[in-house]
């Protein structure tokens, strides 16, 4: 069972979920900067 597990597979390692998290964090930073710039 262990042999079939591939650490490079983005689906099996839940890598997509980590990527999504990073994307949203980056978007959040961009959003906060945009809103603060407009609010000033």
């Amino acid at each position, binding site marked *: 069972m262990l042999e079939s597990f591939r650490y490079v597979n983005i689906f099996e390692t839940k890598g997509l979920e980590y990527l999504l998290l990073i994307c949203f964090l980056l978007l959040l930073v961009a*959003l906060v900067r945009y809103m603060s710039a407009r609010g000033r």
Partner: protein
Amino acid sequence: MRVTVLNGFLAYVFYAGALLLDLGRPWNVPNPIIGNSFGLTSVMFLVCWHFMLYITAELIEFSPAVAEWLGWHRVRRVLNGLTVGAVIFGITLSTLHQSGLGALYMMAKPKLHPLWYSEFIPLLFFISSIFAGLTMVIVEGSITHRVFHHRVSPELERSHDKILFGLARIAGGVMFVYLFLTALNFLHGELWNHIVTGWGAWYLVEIVGLVALPMVLLLAGVAKRHLGVLRIGAGLALLGVILNRLNVTTIAFKWYEAVRYVPSWMEIVVTLMVVFAEIWVFRWVVNRMAVLGPVPRAVSEI
């Protein structure tokens, strides 16, 4: 503040009335209180108690306005002292019962379409209820502001737009979090194969058309200081939450069955009757009590 509390209070009272009409057997209503079969194992027990306590908390929050109207100045002072506690209690209760309503559907995994079922459904219900409340205040506040323009106090008139921009900013932020959790849930559940079906298209209408798009409109409305864009965004967001609840409870529930539930004309008429009766009571109260206008000077000086 008062107009929002009044709106929430009436919505809950009339919703309880509508539930009575819908479920029937009203003699069973006191059972969770008096102990004739408490139903402790049911999520409905939790929801029922939250519902009753929340209505009571909102009544206490609004009660100073009633005391002012009746001229009970000493009672008003006592009730005014209770309102802060009632607000804190009300917020705590609403976080619990919104997620409790979502928790009801955790038991229905085989019946609910996978795109709408999630182990995190209580959390999603709770977060969506936050922006539903905020956008409801924007929509309802805008309508009330126009309809009862002659009753709005000059202070509220001046601060109205600022309040709407503040609410929209928070609602947009919460929708951003909600979108992230929805996307995470989608990836975690590996729901790719469902998205290419008709149900997937319907799901995208809800998430993209009525969550992502209104979020952009709300934030753009705040950034560009444009009330029109903001109001359209709030309206769409509200439709999105209504559609989400309809999808979970009705449309995507038992989605595999050939014969689907469609409300009869009598159910629609009864629902409209409840909604219009609520609007009528709202108007009656606003036209008599200090809901939008200033607190009478004789009272505020006590």
